[in-house]
């Protein structure tokens, strides 16, 4: 090998190993006692069962999994519905005024969530929605990013299909439901992954509006056991694995679509 080639392999290899190392170490640490984890033990130990038991005692896993599933699932369905309708509407029915509205939406892409958080919290408090699923889901439903993603994808939707369906007597809504949705299923699949992951992993907003353990999401539960000054690291590693496993699984099952989905928005 040429020196340049060795250098390139060395660099990429180093980054790749470093990228994977925390995953491996997380799995190893889950089998060790907290004291061993803090001491940096790199060999698997015999504490896995104890750590799992400790985690299950500290966190009501079925409960938080259910909360996460409801919040991420309902949130994803709503976001996709609203955003696909909007993306389709903006692309298929052009008018000068709607183009201006769309340009306005693009400006909203750069509004930081930190600036919305306090009014949203006050709004939820007034609506008596604090500590409810709705409070977590509602502000996340309309996403400028996902609307933009659907509009970009809709550019590839053949207009002739819509014209043909119209001649067959379908209404605009029927065309959307029975022609557009099936044709664009790979776009929907990619968007599902992005939105589901974002909801599943969301931390700050659920932290603000969810206040009791029985409403916590898995992400929140893992963060809350991990945040103490003398945390039980063995237990925490089990939690980190539980929080990572679902998204890791989605990644391995749908790797191609996953990456496509991320990129779709910038094409």
């Amino acid at each position, binding site marked *: 090998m040429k020196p340049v080639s060795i250098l390139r392999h060395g660099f*990429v290899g180093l*980054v*790749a*190993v470093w*990228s994977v190392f*925390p*995953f491996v*170490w*997380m799995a190893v640490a889950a089998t060790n006692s907290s004291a061993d*984890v*803090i001491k*940096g033990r790199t060999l698997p130990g015999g504490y896995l069962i104890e750590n799992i038991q400790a985690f299950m005692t500290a966190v009501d896993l079925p409960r938080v999994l259910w909360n996460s599933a409801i919040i991420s699932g309902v949130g994803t369905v709503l976001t996709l519905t*609203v955003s696909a*309708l*909007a993306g389709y*509407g*903006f692309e*298929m*029915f052009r*008018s000068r005024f*709607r183009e201006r*509205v769309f340009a306005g939406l693009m400006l*909203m892409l*750069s*509004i*930081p*969530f*930190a*600036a*919305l*958080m*306090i*009014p*949203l*919290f*006050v709004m939820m408090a007034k609506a008596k929605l604090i500590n409810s699923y709705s409070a977590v889901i*509602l502000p996340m*439903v*309309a996403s400028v990013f996902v*609307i933009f993603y659907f509009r970009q994808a809709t550019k590839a939707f053949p207009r002739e299909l819509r014209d043909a369906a119209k001649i067959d007597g379908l209404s605009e809504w029927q065309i959307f439901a029975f022609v557009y949705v099936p044709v664009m299923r790979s776009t929907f699949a990619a968007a599902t992954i992005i939105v589901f*992951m974002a909801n599943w992993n969301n*931390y700050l907003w659920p932290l*603000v509006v969810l206040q009791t353990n029985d409403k916590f999401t898995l*992400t929140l539960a*893992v*963060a809350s056991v*991990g945040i103490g000054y003398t*945390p039980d690291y063995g237990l*925490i*590693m089990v*939690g*980190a694995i539980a929080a*990572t496993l679902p*998204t*890791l699984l989605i*990644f391995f099952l749908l790797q191609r679509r996953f*990456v496509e989905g*991320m*990129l779709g928005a*910038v094409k």
Partner: protein
Amino acid sequence: MASGVARREGIAGWGFVMPALVLLGVFMIYPILSSLWMSFQVGKGMNLQFGGFRNIARLAGDAVFLKALANTLLFLVIQVPIMLVTGLVLAAILNDQTFRGRTVYRAMIFLPCVTSLAAYSVVFKAMFTADGVINHVLMALHLSDTGVPWMTDPFWARVLVIIAITWRWTGYNMVFYLAAMQNIDRSIYEAARIDGVPVWARFSRLTLPMMKPVILFTTVISTIGTLQLFDEPNLLTRGGPSDATLTLSMYIYKLSFQFMPSFGYAATVSYVIVLLVGLLTVVQFFFARDRLK
């Protein structure tokens, strides 16, 4: 009748976009205006009254705010360039069709992107303890004699946050670059290669200019993300030691939801982020356009 069709089209068009517009109005436009209004109000909890520019004056004398601002800008200025350059170099190497193992490497480097910020932050926290696995490795390699005080020293705590964010997001940016590189017509490279243009010149003169839009895109999203940094410092270092890793978002959270809430002042701090995001986005677009000429 043409006008009838057009009107029906218009109504259907609004019908499709209306649910999104209503939701954005309620959960985005109203809150952003509301926090602008709140930023002129003073008081504790829900008892707010108009305070004019008192909050803005308070910013200038608030040492914690100034520290959080400095930390956030420091993370931005140091971390974003490191991450984007690394991502770009990785993409350039992995885009080479003859590079062995490129698909495996690509998957490995992308892997951090699937973790939740909360989960990886607690894992990093355990890895970087005083007697932890990272310090063991550093001492074994004789890079450090006694181990690095990651959590207790202000400088190293900042380094730790930068290491963590870079770990999580480099692969994410790399994927954008790879996709953009794959869209570049290979025959251009062939022609340049035959003309004897060296590798690095091909990269800087051919690849980089064509990558400008995607580099701009990643710079803008990374800037917005870093200015809102919350999860990692909150879970890794809790903003410490002595506020060395406190960010603006964390300060807003603390002002609003810990101790006695000062929503008005917190809203003022949040508008600092809004202004920074707006300003930097404009600057970045300006730079990109200027360089294009």
